């Protein structure tokens, strides 16, 4: 299945009560591709990302990652809901980085990174520590290994969060507005880490308002509004030469 897409979404619908947030999303992300999701707040891009990691359950449609349907198991054309342990296993292959970092405040940076290796993959502490240090080094924070999150800057916290997600050796990384909660001067260091990750061939889905990053790093860009994909294509096309009125007016406000 090497040629199958990493993420495949067909007619995804999702409502919160009577509020339909996703109104039929169709998209594919190929292996090694970097896809940026842009659009106004409330357009459903974060919800879609959370659906991929099964933090939200979709109402209808078909969502699969690396050929496996998210949240279900297919057998003889019938879907069976996954057991919590199976769902957890599925999730561990998908890394997620949150807008508000969500680091574990009672653990040091290193313990944050090794927590998944030790508690989920049952890797012994010495090996996990060694790998954790290597990951912290990769995001440029090895000297902060023993610091608690409260004593790191927002940019440093987000870099630790990226290292924590990478520790699970994910095949797909999801970024939910990773720089929106950061002071402007700290955005660059996080984007640099993400850039390096993209260059290493990681498949990435990034919800972002950083148009510069989208232009430079993304293979394709999707503009979402009001629960639908309005426009998609190469960043140079979507960002420099948008076809739809809605995309044009959005871009004129953010750039």
């Amino acid at each position: 299945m090497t040629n199958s897409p990493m993420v495949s979404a067909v007619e995804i619908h999702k409502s919160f009560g009577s509020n339909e947030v996703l109104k039929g999303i169709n998209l594919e992300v190929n292996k090694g591709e970097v896809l940026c999701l842009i659009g106004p707040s409330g357009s459903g891009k974060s919800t879609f990302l959370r659906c991929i990691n099964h933090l939200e359950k979709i109402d209808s449609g078909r969502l699969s990652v690396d050929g496996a349907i998210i949240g279900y198991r297919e057998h003889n054309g019938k879907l069976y809901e996954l057991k919590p342990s199976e769902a957890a296993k599925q999730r561990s292959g998908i890394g997620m980085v949150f807008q508000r970092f969500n680091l574990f405040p009672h653990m040091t940076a290193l313990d944050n990174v090794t927590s998944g290796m030790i508690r989920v993959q049952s890797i012994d502490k010495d090996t996990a520590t060694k790998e954790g240090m290597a990951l912290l080094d990769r995001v440029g924070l090895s000297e902060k290994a023993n610091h608690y999150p409260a004593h790191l800057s927002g940019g440093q916290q987000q870099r630790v969060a990226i290292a924590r997600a990478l520790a699970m050796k994910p095949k797909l990384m999801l970024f939910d507005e990773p720089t929106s909660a950061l002071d402007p001067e700290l955005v660059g260091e996080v984007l640099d880490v993400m850039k390096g990750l993209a260059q290493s061939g990681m498949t990435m889905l990034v919800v972002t308002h950083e148009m510069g990053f989208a232009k430079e790093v993304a293979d394709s860009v999707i503009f979402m509004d009001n629960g639908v994909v309005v426009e998609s294509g190469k960043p140079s096309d979507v960002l420099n030469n948008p076809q739809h009125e809605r995309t044009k007016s959005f871009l004129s406000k953010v750039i």
Partner: protein
Amino acid sequence: MLLSPSRLMAQPAKTSIKAVPLRHPFRWAAALYFVVLAAAFLLDAFHRSAYDWKSFRKYIFEARVFKAAGVTLSLTIISMFLAILLGIVLAVMRRSPNPVFRNVSWVFIWIFRGTPVYVQLVFWGLLSTIYHSFFIGIPDIHFGHFYLGVHFPISQTASLYWLAIIGLSLNEAAYMAEIVRAGLLSVDTGQEEAAESLGMSWWTTMRFIVIPQAMRIIIPPTGNEIISMLKTTSLVTAVPLVTDLYARTRNISDEIYNPIPLLMVACTWYLFFTTILMFVQYFVEKRFARGHSPLSGVQS
């Protein structure tokens, strides 16, 4: 702005502020008033015959009192230990995705928090009157004399000490469950999402992510509950258990026809224990504040 060297030179040297500090005459007056009041009370008490200080000195470290203080302390520690464990179980059950667990926990809390602990202790004392034995297994199925299970007779002399512990801990567990629940609710949902996205199971998330963070919220009221439990043990006379500090001192006071010095003895011991507990609480709170206080920024 760039400062030229000459302007840097011109900057005045740093001097500390010299000023007359604000005076607080009322604080001094209030302190004096209460010191005089306390001194007057103590001087008076020292000579007042009803306190019977001679008896106080005689009984404060008397073997029976000493032993009773031990009983009170062990009742407190064992009951509280069981109550905390059961409280955590009940609180986690309240949050379980399983609706059966949620409802069982709710009913337990409803009953044990909704009735007075004194009445519950009387009930536990009457356990052997209500139930003659208790049985683990499948009732009503037997092959001749072979039952699918085991019978435990509840003797008339069932240990009053352990009945008191059961009564105290089940009642306290209902309160602890609510304290733990408040602690669990205080943890940001983003923490669970982050743990889940790493692939942690619900229980691993609870055990390693949510509960440790909830502890910071749970510990101060729990310290309060332990101190409260220490004093609630004086109600075990309802079971009736009469070996604890309060029952024993009352018992002794019948010998000397004066309850007052023995009440002072009991109060002194209760205060001694609560003082120790307050110290312990201070250090435990510091331990669980990791990552939250400026002093704990770097792991040593």
